[in-house]
């Protein structure tokens, strides 16, 4: 069957399979294929100063390495989830970090469930927040993938 295909079709099919196989083996953030540093920042503190600090650290990493060379994810859980509430004062800075450097923000669903229980309704999160089942598990997974954990 395959031997009946034109030679160029077989060649391109082989190359396609090669590309797909290569991509399937790729690690880290596919949005940052040229990143040389992979960093996960933890925010689990209710202090607004800490919220500002973690964003400052992300900004400084990007400034130093360049947006293409560093891959940053900020994981918020516990009281730190306040950083990712929709009405948080830092939402403009979050927008900027996402749009200019593709920084990712992960929100802990366990914490969100607790907030929902206490408030009586689910609080609105920043549109850039990605839900993860547990913030601490997300951090462990990223460390396993080679990320460096920093807790400012």
């Amino acid at each position, binding site marked *: 069957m395959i031997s009946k295909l034109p030679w160029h079709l077989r060649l391109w099919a082989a190359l396609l399979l090669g590309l797909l196989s290569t*991509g399937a083996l*790729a690690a880290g953030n596919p949005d940052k294929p040229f990143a040389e540093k992979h960093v996960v920042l933890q925010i689990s503190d209710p202090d607004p100063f800490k919220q500002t600090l973690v964003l400052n650290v992300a900004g400084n990493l990007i400034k130093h390495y360049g947006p293409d060379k560093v891959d940053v994810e900020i994981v918020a859980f516990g009281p730190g989830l306040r950083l990712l509430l929709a009405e948080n004062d830092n939402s403009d800075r979050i927008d900027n970090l996402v749009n200019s450097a593709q920084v990712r923000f992960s929100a802990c669903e366990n914490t969100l469930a607790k907030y929902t229980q206490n408030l009586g309704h689910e609080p609105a999160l920043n549109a850039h927040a990605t839900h993860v089942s547990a913030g601490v598990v997300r951090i462990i997974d990223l460390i396993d993938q080679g990320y460096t954990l920093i807790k400012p």
Partner: protein
Amino acid sequence: MYNTRTCLAAVIAATGLAAALPTQAANWLMLQGTEPAGAAERARVWGFIQPEFQYTEGTKLEAGPFSGQDAIFNTIGPDRDASSQFNIRRARIGLRGQGFPLDSNTNYFFLVEAGNNGITKPGGGLGSLKLTDASVTFNHFDAARVRVGQFKTPGSEEGLKAIHVFDYVNFTSVTDGVLLERYIDADGSAPNDPNGPNGPVGAFRDIGIQLFQTFRRDDWEHSYAVMVGNGNGLARSDNNNEKDIYLYLSTEKIFGGKGARRQGWKGFVWYQEGDRTLTLAQGTDSTADDVEQDFERKRWGVGTTYLNGKYRAAAEYIVADGMIRNGSDGGAVVGALANNGLSRASLNVLPEDEADGWYLDFGYKIRPNIELDVRYDRFNRATDTDPAERRFDTLTLGAQYFFNKKTRFIFNYEFREAEAPNLPSSHPANQILDGMDDRISAQILAIF
């Protein structure tokens, strides 16, 4: 793991498989038809400009009734007066957003074209500003969103994707041949009627109503679209009572990211069906004998797109049944007078023939701001009629340089070949097609 990736990348690079990165794997139904609920602006101005330069050697026709004249395939559209030219290929400006403060579940999309192309100057005719998109989407139901107006029809990836993230300057031969529709009045058989386009090219768009939705489950996203439209092109009313049907299904494994450059692996199938009305000449000297006749036009395809980090790939197989555009008489520019002075070259269509084609497309980003592309496409035209069958093969090598996220430079070199596979090599048709030049193109794309 990284060693494996490096080795495979080296093997691919060594085989000359260097390519680009941008689009692919994006959900065009959602990106073009919706806005983030409650988060979009009331009116966001946007658009893009594409100045370009294209060049062929301008080889003349080497046989046939127009021998020595310009070959249409070696001229540059839309005017077809030159074999090299600077041009403003596209210049579009539009608005999109949630313009109805009382209802954030309703959004709109509006875009006009002011560039020099088949939309504004069909067949090299008079230029004018043209409406390309004007639609309103209602997002009130979980099972189906409703989009009404003029917009891109659900179909081939090459047609459906946003043109401002297209990785090449020119479309593949099969897309240009059977999907980028030219609307004409007759089949081109009348000897002195150029049978030029009677309006803008279809630009993969129609006026109608579409039901669509996307369902997300973990990292998988499944989408569908069903559309009914006029099937008569841009910014004008229908010319018959038959409506076109468009069907589309896709499923995608999402790796990450968002928007037009979302990373993922998508598979899709699509089907389109409609009728086209032609006026066929029944006699040679009296229009009184002409009759209108409807012909079925069917298109379908299956394909996949892939984007992961530095790597990009796409493949699609396209089939066409009915209304097969069949080039121009003798390969001449439409309207050209034959050397014997007795007839003019017309744009032709085979209303009941078939065609098919496919493309394979790869990209590799060698640096954050440089990507290399390679694409191979095949177009088998008029496969149901041996003497009329033509085969087009094009290998396109490309490079893109990103000045920033919204401005890039695209360079393409197209190795082009064509033949009449069922005719001897000495046949005038093959002598004409032997004169098909390679094509060089360079384009700037600036999005605002």
